[in-house]
């Protein structure tokens, strides 16, 4: 027999109490895992989208990020800038009749010929073919969207009151991008009532990798009314924003977990008081103060560990629930997150055990043995 066996025996002695304590700490840990994993997933998605669809440089209306509106005419000016290889326009559509953020609400108007040149290296055509310049009412569907709505090539869909035929299913390997329809840019302008030359953003590929920053600067200097940002610069902005989200989620869930830790401290203190006489016996048969302290701290550690494992499981489930409810949210559980959450839970258990352990260790054996 060793200390661990005594501890496990003791933890199992009051099953209901142990379970409630574990539930307390595991809810905190679950909150950490679910929230942080969602923010990590968001980050992975956002960073991915920067690199893939936006190309090396994204150009928007000067001073606008979300309401950007440009004329297609500037594409000629941009194409002439030294170091620019390819230019492709995008019109962003949301069919609000389908509900904001619901599957099938988002579409992107692209120039079929330019898009094939621009994206052929980053998309996979899973079924069918890319849209062509003659496809005024043909659409490609992202693979995630196709799964969600069970779309097949050849099938007809309705978007903003118009009928489209699915000509291809594509995958960028990114949840956000794979959740949209891709239609002809002219059709997109027509059905949304925008002017014949309207675009929301223009994407650029540079001739030489590593020159993105430099070319973006050149565009900003030579083309009036636009703002060019390299992917790296955009990712940095996005990362900063996401880092704040991650910190906030940690803070919220840490509060929840600390509440769980207080629960551990409370349970163990009660358990120590209840076992005063037993602790007296341990001391009478030759256990030192630190032996007694050790056994209580191990108990805290075990409670923290079990609560942590349970919490990671619950967090995993919660993450999947949120993922299903909110399309475009991709949870991401990393090994680092698991290790962090477990370390956090174990630390809480041990810290929660310090005072009860100290109290137990310094009991006077004679007084302790007299307890009934």
């Amino acid at each position, binding site marked *: 027999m060793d200390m661990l066996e005594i501890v496990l025996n003791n933890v199992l002695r009051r099953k209901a109490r142990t379970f409630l304590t574990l539930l307390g700490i595991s809810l905190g840990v679950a909150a950490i895992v679910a929230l942080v994993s969602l923010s990590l997933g968001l980050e992975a998605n956002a960073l991915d989208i920067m690199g893939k669809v936006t190309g090396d440089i994204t150009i928007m209306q000067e001073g606008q990020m979300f309401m950007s509106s440009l004329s297609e005419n500037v594409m000629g000016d941009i194409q002439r800038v030294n170091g620019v290889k390819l230019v492709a326009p995008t019109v962003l559509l949301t069919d609000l009749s389908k509900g904001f953020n619901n599957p099938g609400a988002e579409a992107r108007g692209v120039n079929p010929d330019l898009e094939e040149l621009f994206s052929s290296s980053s998309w996979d055509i899973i079924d069918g073919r890319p849209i062509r310049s003659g496809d005024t009412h043909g659409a490609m569907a992202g693979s995630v969207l196709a799964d969600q709505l069970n779309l097949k090539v050849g099938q007809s869909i309705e978007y903003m009151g118009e009928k489209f035929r699915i000509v291809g299913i594509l995958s960028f390997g990114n949840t956000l991008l794979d959740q949209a329809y891709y239609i002809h840019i002219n059709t997109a302008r027509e059905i949304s009532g925008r002017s014949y030359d309207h675009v929301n953003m223009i994407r650029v590929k540079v001739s030489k990798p590593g020159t993105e920053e430099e070319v973006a600067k050149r565009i900003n200097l030579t083309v009036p009314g636009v703002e060019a940002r390299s992917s790296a610069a955009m990712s940095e902005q996005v990362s900063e924003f996401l880092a704040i989200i991650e910190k906030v989620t940690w803070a919220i869930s840490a509060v929840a977990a600390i509440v769980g830790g207080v629960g551990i401290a409370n349970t163990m203190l009660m358990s120590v008081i209840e076992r005063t006489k037993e602790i007296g016996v341990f001391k009478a048969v030759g256990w*030192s103060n630190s032996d007694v302290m050790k056994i209580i701290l191990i108990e805290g550690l075990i409670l923290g560990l079990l609560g942590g494992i349970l919490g990671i499981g619950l967090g995993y489930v919660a993450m999947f629930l949120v993922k299903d409810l909110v399309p475009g949210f991709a949870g991401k559980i990393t090994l680092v997150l698991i290790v962090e959450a477990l370390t956090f839970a174990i630390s809480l258990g041990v810290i929660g055990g310090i005072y009860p352990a100290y109290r137990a260790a310094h009991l006077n054996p004679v007084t302790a043995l007299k307890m009934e």
Partner: protein
Amino acid sequence: MIRIENLSKYYTMGTVTVKALKGINLIIKDGEYLAIMGPSGSGKSTLLNLLGALDKPTAGTVYFDGINLARVDESVLYQLRRKKVGFVFQSFNLIPTLNAIENVLIPLVPTSVSKIEGYKRAKELLMTVGLEKRILHKPSEMSGGEQQRVAVARALINNPKIILADEPTGNVDTKTGGEIMNLLKNLNINMGTTLIVVTHDPEIGNSTERTVQLRDGTIVE
């Protein structure tokens, strides 16, 4: 050998000071079988706790094999309890969630004795006290006499030099009490373990080599 000089122990209970022992002198030789008798509150248990290094005196000294227990710190006291002393209590003091053999093993848990060696020794001791069929039974599944025999086995697991028994027969019937006393006496005779028994029972008092009578914290004879 244990030598007690001018030993006093006072407790403070609220504003009242209880003088449990008042200047006792006593010498206990190795291998001796001694009974400490006296009415309730005469200081018997207090004396036993001081002999077993469970408590520290208010004044005076206890020399345990030459070590002055009043002068050493806690780390020496627990080493002494671990290596040289075995306690047997009136209320057995077994851990209710552990079975017989696990209870016997408790003193070995913080030591370097291997698991296999520990189990072997505990099993032998449970056989010695006649509990070979109760090894995996919890205290709640055993009679009082059986529980007390587990407690005796627990007291013996570290091969102590001295057994301190505080009313060991107080919670069992007369017949079982007799069996337990025989068990302890045999240890004293066969293994030379010093045996000190606190008791109310005049019969036990009569069976020992020597009896110390306490009254109001002092030795009367």
